[in-house]
């Protein structure tokens, strides 16, 4: 609701003041009065006034002076001059001095109210205009600031930024981009894309974005761009205008050279380790075999014994290499898991069969207790074989002669459990949290002669967790251990 407007009536004649008050109050205005210009100006200093009705001629201060002073102090307050018939020329002079209107005495009711109404409307209109102008100025300022801020952000970015218009011309790029591209010297802007980045697949992407975006589909295309030794990941997206038509594109270039190099270095290293270590070991292994086979002359019993032990050590080293590579692969997420419905019972039967001879050698009895209706799990067959060969061999290795190893399968609704229990030497409680760590080996004098890499359980854990399963252990020193593998169905 609009505020009640205040009208100031200035006249030296009380009858005019009262008359105006009587006329204007019913119109809903608040009316204040002053007997001369001086009083009027004082009053305007004390309270807000919307419109002034001012007599032309007054003893202390006349309308011309009021116009001059009020015009300077309150430019937004319209002043209407009240004048007698004989002084029209003076009234015209007042208009020249900035009066808004004049009414002649004796005035008609409708003339006066109309003049006041119009003055108020004018004031309102002016206020609105001024507010709009102020808002516009503020918006322009905000916009300029926003733009400047955005430009600074773009220029400070460690990633390259390239902006094109819908004609695939470059309209903006940041210093990182020119640096990544090795560009120097001034480039036309807007300029052809080829001058900035001459890469056919990229040009095609920008073209596609400019064309297909008009269907209103928002998308972000990612591609790798190789510039000499620099590898970049480019993410491109269309920019839409308010009419949902594409205005151009924005592409951000992230430098992934370091990752690429690290990856290549890692692969080279794995490659090197695998070749440079396995090759000589192969020669050593074969040389031992040749000697053991008597191809290099007769071998004494003592020599044979030593060489056989050396052979076992070489085999251990080869396993260490393979397992190191294996765990590196699992950790890097490189290992391909073919998750297919797998009958664990079958796998466990094979594992038991494979390790039967080993168990017999160590005088350990192997039991297999897998129900025929054990539900299948989604798992990679080769990895599961690795897991259970590892766990069952461990169980056999850490069981003294006459011990027993039991492989049991259980179904628990959403998951399947495989339990491998032994009657072996057991694990010290403080060692239990560490046994799944890489290269950790139990420090039990009874376990000293057991050959191992310290990686087996780390691999088991890695594989099981990659299947979103879990592996747990319970053990009592001197009584045996139970490893439980839980796999989701």
């Amino acid at each position: 609701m609009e505020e009640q407007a205040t009208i100031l009536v200035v006249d030296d004649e009380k009858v005019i003041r009262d008359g105006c008050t009587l006329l204007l109050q019913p119109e809903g205005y608040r009316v204040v009065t002053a007997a001369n210009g001086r009083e009027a100006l004082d009053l305007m200093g004390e309270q807000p006034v919307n419109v002034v009705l001012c007599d032309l001629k007054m003893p202390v201060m006349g309308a011309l002076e009021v116009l001059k002073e009020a015009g300077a102090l309150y430019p937004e307050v319209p002043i209407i001059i009240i004048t007698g018939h004989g002084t029209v020329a003076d009234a015209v002079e007042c208009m020249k001095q900035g009066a808004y209107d004049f009414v002649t005495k004796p005035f008609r009711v409708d003339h006066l109210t109309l003049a006041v109404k119009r003055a108020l409307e004018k004031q309102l209109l002016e206020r609105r205009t001024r507010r709009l102008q102020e808002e516009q100025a503020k918006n322009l300022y905000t916009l300029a600031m926003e733009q400047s801020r955005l430009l600074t952000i773009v220029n400070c970015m460690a990633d390259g930024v390239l902006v094109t218009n819908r004609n695939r011309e470059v309209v903006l790029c940041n210093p990182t981009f020119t640096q990544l591209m090795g560009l120097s010297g001034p480039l036309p802007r807007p300029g052809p894309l080829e001058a900035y980045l001459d890469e056919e697949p990229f040009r095609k992407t920008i073209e596609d974005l400019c064309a297909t975006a008009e269907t209103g589909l928002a998308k972000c295309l990612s591609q790798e761009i190789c510039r000499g030794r620099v590898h970049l990941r480019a993410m491109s997206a269309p920019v839409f205008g308010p009419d949902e038509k594409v205005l151009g594109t924005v592409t951000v270039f992230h430098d992934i050279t370091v990752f690429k190099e690290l990856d290549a270095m890692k692969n080279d290293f794995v490659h090197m380790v695998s070749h440079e270590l396995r090759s000589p070991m192969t020669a050593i292994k074969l040389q031992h075999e040749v000697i053991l086979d008597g191809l290099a002359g007769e071998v004494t019993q003592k020599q044979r014994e030593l060489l056989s032990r050396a052979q076992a050590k070489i085999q251990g080293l080869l396993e260490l290499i393979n397992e190191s590579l294996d765990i590196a692969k699992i950790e890097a997420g490189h290992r391909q898991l073919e998750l297919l419905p797998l009958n664990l019972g079958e796998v466990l039967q094979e594992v038991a069969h494979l390790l039967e001879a080993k168990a017999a050698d160590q005088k350990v009895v192997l039991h297999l207790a897998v129900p025929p209706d054990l539900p299948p799990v989604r798992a990679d067959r080769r990895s599961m074989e690795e897991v259970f060969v590892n766990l069952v061999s461990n169980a056999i290795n850490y069981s003294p002669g006459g011990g027993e190893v039991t492989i049991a399968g259980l179904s628990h609704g959403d998951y399947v459990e495989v339990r491998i229990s032994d009657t072996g030497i057991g694990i010290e409680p403080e060692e239990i949290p560490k046994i799944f760590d890489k290269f950790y080996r139990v420090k039990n004098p009874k376990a000293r002669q057991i050959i191992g890499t310290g990686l087996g359980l780390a691999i088991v854990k890695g594989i099981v967790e990659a299947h979103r399963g879990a592996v747990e252990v319970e053990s009592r020193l001197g009584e045996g251990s139970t490893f439980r593998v839980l796999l989701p169905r």
Partner: protein
Amino acid sequence: MSAKYVLIVDDDPDLVETVSMILENKGYEVGKAYDGIEGEAAIKQRRPDALVLDVMMPRKNGYQLCKELKADQATRGIPVVLLTAVGEAVPTTTYSHAEGMAVEAEDFIPKPVDAATLVQAVERLL
């Protein structure tokens, strides 16, 4: 009947020496070469009944040599067993079992190899 002639090509002289001892013990006649180029020359000089070929060698690797042999009508028939230290354990290598099959080798054994496996592989080729 004269002894079968097996050519072994590997850049590790120890391995070549040991493998030849093993094969000679089994009654084969063994030729030796230490890289792909030498292997190629040795084949030209005397056509082997079987070839034991290492993959990673300087100058010309085993894949390259095998591919060339299989592309040549004259040498196509020589059976090849590829030996490599880089097995399936390496994920992104260019040396793989699949690659070995692609160059049409008859067999592929990963190192480390033991004497029995090697002898079996050679016997299968002949």
